[in-house]
C-alpha cells in the first residue's frame, strides 16, 4: 500500500436507481493534494463526492481510504473514518434550527469529551478562521449565502480533518467572494496539512487551486482525463476536455 495515496478509487461505477451515472472510474488522490473533480453540469460530480463520503453505496468497484473501504468497515471503523473527514455541501447545509455556534459545536460534542467552555472556545476559533467571528449566535437564515458556506466550512474543519470534501464551494457566489473562499480553502489545506477534494466547474478555481484532478464526462459516462488541470490542458488529446478547460475558445 502506498503511504502517499489518501484515496484510491478503483473500477468505480455509480448508479442512481437504474440510471448509470459514471462507470469505470480509476484515480488516486495523493496526500496533500487539492484534488478537483471537474466536468460539465449533470455529469455526476456531486454524486461521486457523495459516494466518496459514504452517503451512497457504489454499484461496483471500491473507494479505499488508506487501503480500507468505508462500506466493508465495521461501524467503529466507519465512525473513526468519518471523524477524519470534513464535508461541506452546496448550500452550506447548516442545521436551520441551530445557531452557527451550535452547528459548529455538533461534531465536537459528538466526538470529543471537551467541556462546554472548551467547546465554546473551539467554536469561536473555528468561526474566526473562516471570518465569522462575532456571528456565533446568528441563525443560518439571518446570514448571507456566502456566510452560510463559510460557516459550513467551519463545521467541516471542527475536528481538524485529514480530508476535506467540498461540493461546489463557489457556486452562487460573486467572483470576489468565490476567489476569497478559494484562498481560504487553500490556506486551510496548507496550514492543516489536509487533503482537499473539491467538486467544481468554475474554471478560475480549477486552475487557481487544483494540483490534481479528474475530468468526468456526461456523454461517455466515464473519466476522460486525470492529472493536474494544467497538465490536462497541455497534454490531453480529448476535444471535450480541452473545450471545457478553455471555455470552448
Amino acid at each position, binding site marked *: 500500500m502506498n503511504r502517499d495515496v489518501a484515496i484510491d478509487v478503483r473500477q468505480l461505477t455509480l448508479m442512481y436507481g437504474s440510471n448509470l451515472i459514471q462507470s469505470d472510474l480509476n484515480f488516486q488522490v495523493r496526500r496533500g493534494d487539492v484534488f478537483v473533480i471537474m466536468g460539465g453540469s449533470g455529469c455526476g460530480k456531486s454524486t461521486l463526492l457523495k459516494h466518496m463520503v459514504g452517503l451512497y453505496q457504489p454499484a461496483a468497484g471500491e473507494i479505499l481510504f488508506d487501503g480500507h473501504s468505508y462500506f466493508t468497515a465495521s461501524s467503529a471503523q466507519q465512525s473513526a473514518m*468519518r471523524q477524519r473527514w470534513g464535508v461541506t455541501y452546496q448550500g452550506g*447545509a*447548516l*442545521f436551520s434550527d441551530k445557531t452557527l455556534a451550535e452547528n459548529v459545536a455538533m*461534531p465536537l460534542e*459528538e466526538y470529543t469529551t471537551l467541556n462546554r467552555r472548551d467547546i465554546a472556545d473551539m467554536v469561536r476559533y473555528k468561526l474566526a478562521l473562516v471570518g465569522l467571528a462575532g456571528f456565533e449566535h446568528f441563525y443560518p437564515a439571518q446570514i448571507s449565502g456566502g456566510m452560510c458556506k463559510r460557516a459550513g466550512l467551519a463545521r467541516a474543519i471542527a475536528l481538524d480533518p485529514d480530508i476535506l470534501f467540498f461540493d461546489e464551494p463557489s457556486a452562487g457566489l460573486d467572483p470576489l467572494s468565490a476567489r476569497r473562499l478559494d484562498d481560504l480553502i487553500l490556506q486551510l489545506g496548507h496550514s492543516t496539512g489536509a487533503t482537499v477534494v473539491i467538486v467544481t466547474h468554475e474554471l478560475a478555481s480549477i486552475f487557481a487551486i487544483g494540483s490534481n484532478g479528474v475530468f468526468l464526462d456526461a456523454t461517455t459516462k466515464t473519466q476522460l482525463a486525470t492529472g493536474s488541470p494544467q497538465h490536462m490542458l497541455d497534454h490531453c488529446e480529448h476535444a471535450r476536455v480541452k473545450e471545457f478547460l478553455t471555455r470552448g475558445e
Partner: protein
Amino acid sequence: MNQATLVTDKTANDSVAITLQGSWTIGNTIPDPGQLAALANVNSITTVVFITAEDFAWDSRLLAWLMAAQRQLGSCLFDLSALPAEVGDLFRLANTVPASQVRTPERQTLKQKCLAGIARLGDEVLGLLAFIGDMFIALGRWLIGKSTARWSDILTFCYQCGPSALAIITLQSVLVGMILGYLGVVQLRQFGAEVYVSDLVGVGMVREMGALMTAVIMSGRTGAAYAAGLGTMQVNEEIDALTTLGIPPMDNLVLPRTLALLLTMPLLCLYSNILGMVGGGLVATSMDITWLLYLHQLRDAITITDIATGVFKGFVFALLIAMAGCRAGLECGRSSAAVGQATTRAVVTALIYLIIADAGLNILFFHLGV
C-alpha cells in the same frame, strides 16, 4: 393591423415561393402550418423560398410557425434569405441543437399496471418494515445509553406535541362529546332511557373517540409538521450533513420526535376523554339530566380497563403517526414540490394506519374480552 396570409407561387418543379403578408405576430391569427405541409406533400417540393410583402411584420409567432411547418415538412429546405436577417439567425439558433431523442416510456397494459402496482405495494410494505426495524434498533440504542438523541430535543418536541396542541384538542373533544351526547339522547329517549347517555358518551370517548380523534388531529398537526421539517432538511442536504458527521438521522431526528409523541399522546387522550365527557354533560344537562346524575352514571359506566384500552390505543396511534410523518420526511425528494408531497403522504398514510390499527385493536379487544 393586416391579416397574416401566405401566397404561394410555384417557381420550379421542386421549389415554391411563399410570400408572407401582414402581421405574423402574437395576438394575430396566422395560417395553419399544415397548409404549407399539405402543399409541399402534394407537389413533392424540396425547397421553400420565403419572401415578404411590404406590410410584413413579425415576432416569435413567425418563428414558432416556421418551426412547426418545418417539423411537418421534414426534409424540406427552407430558404429564409429574403426574410429579415434576424429571422434567419433566430431560426438557425433554434435548430442548432437537435431535439433530444428522449424515449417516452411505453404504454403499459392493464396487466403490467396491476403487476407494477403490486410490486409497489410490496416495496412499500418492505420499506415500512425496514423503517420499523431501524426505529426499534435506535430505540434500543437509546435505552442502553448509546444514542445521540438528546433530552433537550425530546423536551422541545414534547412541548410542540403536548401543551401547544391543547387548544385544538379541547375544541375537538368538547364537540365530539356533544355530538355523542346528542346522538345518545335522541336515540335513548325513544326507550325513555336518556339517563344512559353518560354510558354512551363515557364509554364512547374513553374507548374510541378520545384516542381516535386526538390521533386524527395530531396526524394533521404533528405528523405533517414532522414530514415537512424533515423533508426540508433533506432538500437542504442537512440530513446528508448529519450522516457524514456520523450522527444517524434515526437517532438524532426520528427518535426524539417519536418519543415526544409517545410520551404526550396518552396524556392528550386522557385529557380528551375528560373534556369529551364534559361536552356530553353539557348536552345531557340541557335535557333534564342533572350533573350529579350524569356523573354518578358515568362513574358506574367506565371501568379502568376502558381507560387502559383508550390510553393503549393512544400509544399505538402515536407510534404510527410519528412513523408515517418521519418516514415521509426522510424519504422526501430534493425539491420544494417533494416537501409538499411528503406532507400529504405523511397525513394520508397516518390516517390509513390509524383506521386499520383501530379496527384491528377493536377486534383484538373483543376476542380478548377487554
